[in-house]
């Protein structure tokens, strides 16, 4: 039992380190810690950090693109992709090693993660050769950014309940409807979309998968302001959007199958668990006074902090176990679902408890707040979203129960009826 790399892994890590040292700025350990309300911490989001004003957003995007270009030139932009599409042809453990090392630097890869991690592999599996040749290289270099148009107002946890209409008109398809929770739709160049092409078929059979140019007339993205105040997601409206049949990926009616490829490629949970954690409240407890002195000396506070410590480190060591499996060429299964389930609730508990410790000053939510600059106020809002985004607590528990423990699937009333006969509460 040890934490050492194999010789090949060590070699790879050395290469990554020398690339990063030469090309990026290292975070100081202190600044690296509090990540607060950063959209990139949501597992499937990959949106930029909250930025104020359009100029700041543009600068951040330009910087990210410049970084992506360097990464692509060095071969590290898509470690799991085969070499023929510009990837590194690497292994999952190499991907993890790269992510670990990059985590220590001030760089942003969030804009490109959905494309490289999920949409690119979908195109590789199902797309036409000419599309692969045209789109994949620019996806890697960051010249073109992609977004994933899946969720809808009435298709969240129940993703196959998609209602976006796709109607065939000669050689074209006409899209009408609304998508929601789309990260990066406002700056993406292209998107991949699932729509209902046959409402009279069974729910999972009537879907078709396409890619769209986000500048096509009739597409409009509107940012959604979250309770945290930031806007990392969009609603995207489709009004008589006409796209050629050549933009279909997979056969008509195969949209669900193709979507599963996208979803299976959810990026491996790597790096440190995001956001607020034991370390932050432990530091804060040394500054906050409670009834009998410093919070860190209060027995109730210590008991609570110990709970968060074992959760936090338990997840970290679970990740080491997964990495060990990866390193031996095994595939970690859905047991990785526990990471977000535990992290999100822990963050909500930690931030809510920290506000309590601050007593009246916990009410204050502005930059002057002396305790770790609003960290806990931000976490209080962000954690509520985190328990829902990328799979709700309840969906994750179902995944663990069914796929890890092998318990029976929920009984469903939506598998036997044509989609347009399903109860929706709206008919």
């Amino acid at each position, binding site marked *: *039992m*040890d*934490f*050492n*790399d194999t010789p090949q*892994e060590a070699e790879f890590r050395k290469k990554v380190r020398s690339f990063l040292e030469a090309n990026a700025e290292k975070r100081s350990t202190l600044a690296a810690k509090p990540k607060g309300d950063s959209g990139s911490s949501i597992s499937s989001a990959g949106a930029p950090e909250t930025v104020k004003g359009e100029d700041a957003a543009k600068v951040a995007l330009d910087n990210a693109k410049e970084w992506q270009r360097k990464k692509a030139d060095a071969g590290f932009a898509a470690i799991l992709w085969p070499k023929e599409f510009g990837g590194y042809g690497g292994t999952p*453990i190499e991907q993890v090693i790269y992510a670990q090392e990059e985590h220590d630097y001030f760089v942003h890869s969030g804009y490109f993660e959905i494309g490289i991690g999920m949409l690119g592999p979908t195109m590789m599996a199902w797309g036409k050769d000419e599309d692969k040749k045209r789109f994949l290289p620019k996806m890697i270099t960051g010249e073109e950014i992609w977004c994933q148009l899946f969720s809808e107002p009435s298709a969240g946890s129940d993703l196959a309940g998609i209602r976006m209409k796709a109607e065939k008109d000669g050689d074209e398809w006409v899209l009408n409807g609304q998508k929601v929770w789309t990260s990066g739709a406002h700056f993406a160049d292209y998107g991949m979309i699932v729509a209902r092409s046959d409402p009279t078929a069974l729910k999972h059979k009537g879907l078709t998968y396409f890619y769209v140019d986000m500048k096509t007339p009739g597409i409009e993205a509107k940012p959604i302001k979250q309770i945290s105040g930031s806007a990392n997601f969009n609603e995207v409206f489709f009004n008589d959007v006409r796209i050629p049949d050549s933009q279909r990926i997979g056969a008509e009616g195969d949209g669900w199958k193709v979507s599963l490829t996208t979803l299976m490629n959810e990026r491996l949970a790597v790096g440190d668990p995001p956001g607020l954690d034991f370390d932050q409240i*432990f530091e804060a407890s040394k500054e906050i006074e409670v009834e009998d002195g410093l919070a*860190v000396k209060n*027995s109730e506070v*210590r*008991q609570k*902090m*110990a*709970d968060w*410590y*074992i*959760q936090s*480190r*338990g*997840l*970290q*060591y*679970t990740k*080491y*176990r997964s*990495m*060990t*499996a990866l*390193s031996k060429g095994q595939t970690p299964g859905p*047991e990785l679902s*526990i990471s977000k*389930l*535990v992290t999100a609730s822990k963050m909500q508990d930690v931030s809510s408890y920290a506000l309590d410790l601050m007593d009246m000053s916990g009410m204050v939510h502005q930059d002057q707040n002396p305790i770790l600059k609003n960290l806990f106020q931000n976490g209080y809002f962000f954690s509520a979203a985190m328990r829902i985004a990328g799979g709700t607590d*309840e969906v*994750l*528990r*179902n995944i*663990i*129960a*069914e796929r*890890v*423990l*092998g*318990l*029976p*699937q*929920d*009984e469903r009333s939506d598998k036997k009826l044509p989609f347009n006969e399903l109860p929706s509460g709206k008919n």
Partner: protein
Amino acid sequence: MNFDFSDDQKLLRDQARKFLQDKCDRKSVRSILEDNQKNYDADLWSQISELGWTGTAIPEEYGGLGLGMLELCVIAEELGRALAPTPFSSSIYIFAEFLKSYGTDEQKKKYLPHIASGEKIGTFALSETNGKPKPNNIKTQHASGKLNGSKNPVSDGESADYIIVAANSDSNSNYNSLSLFIIDRNDPGLNISNLDTIDPTRPACTVDLKNVACERLGDEGSGWEMIDNILNRAAVLFSFEQVGGAQVSLDEAKKYSLERFAFGKQIGAFQALKHKMADMYVKIELARSNAYYGAWALSTDSNELPIAAAGARVSASEAYNYASQENIQIHGGVGFTWEYDCHLFYRRSKLLSLNIGSIRQWKENLISNLEKRNIV
């Protein structure tokens, strides 16, 4: 990254599991539970001793197998799964570890071969009263080579041949007054009376000491320091036992939920139960990972041991308590009958979480060690 047990260690685990399925079934656990005269399963004890388990981590020169602490962790998990009614933890995790770390060569030669062979049993006597043992509530006194006082509860005291006793060796009662002494069970000044416990397969007793002859273990006045260290080592091993028991609690809850039908379907198909079992799984996985980290710290003599051990201990205690309690809940009415096995785990989990100090104490240990590390 190689954060896992080796193939040889996994082989040992498979063999131990198979052996215990055969030799330590629920019937034999119950035979100890239901018989007031028996403190442990003597047949099982002699068989696991013959297999060398008791000597796993004792050096060859003192009669052991000279394997490492990781192998002992593997065995501990299996003993926990099987609810083995033996004094293994008292004799091996604690008594043998005290001797290995602090015994003189002469003491090691005198005691360890008998402990390794399982022919003698050792234990440790610290507590004297309700609540956490600390300087102001340890009254047992050492003077002129004799011990006087009373210890309660002492795990496996009735079965023990040797007991390490914590006693004040000067007239103060502070953190530098405590020393450790080894006594022999056959001393005429010793009076042992049995105590009922919440898990009668893990017995305890009161040990009264009247002018009992003893020999000192380790330096005079360094008792608390030695205790901290050995209980940290034991905590990692206990955490593996606890993870083992927690896993079986979940497995049995799951099995029952698939056999039992209500409202026209398997009760395991209801989300309320699925989510409960998912929560059990999450706590157990986190506990297992924390235990692995403890095992790493233990096997490499890392400075991280106090933190790793406390993390493993808290995580495993909470996971097992939760899993055994919700196992009863998932079984419904039959879950609280004597006939079903749920209570065996419910008893064992709580007893193990108290045996070397409560969750509360270990959480406090964890945070105070994190504070110390921060200052360094």
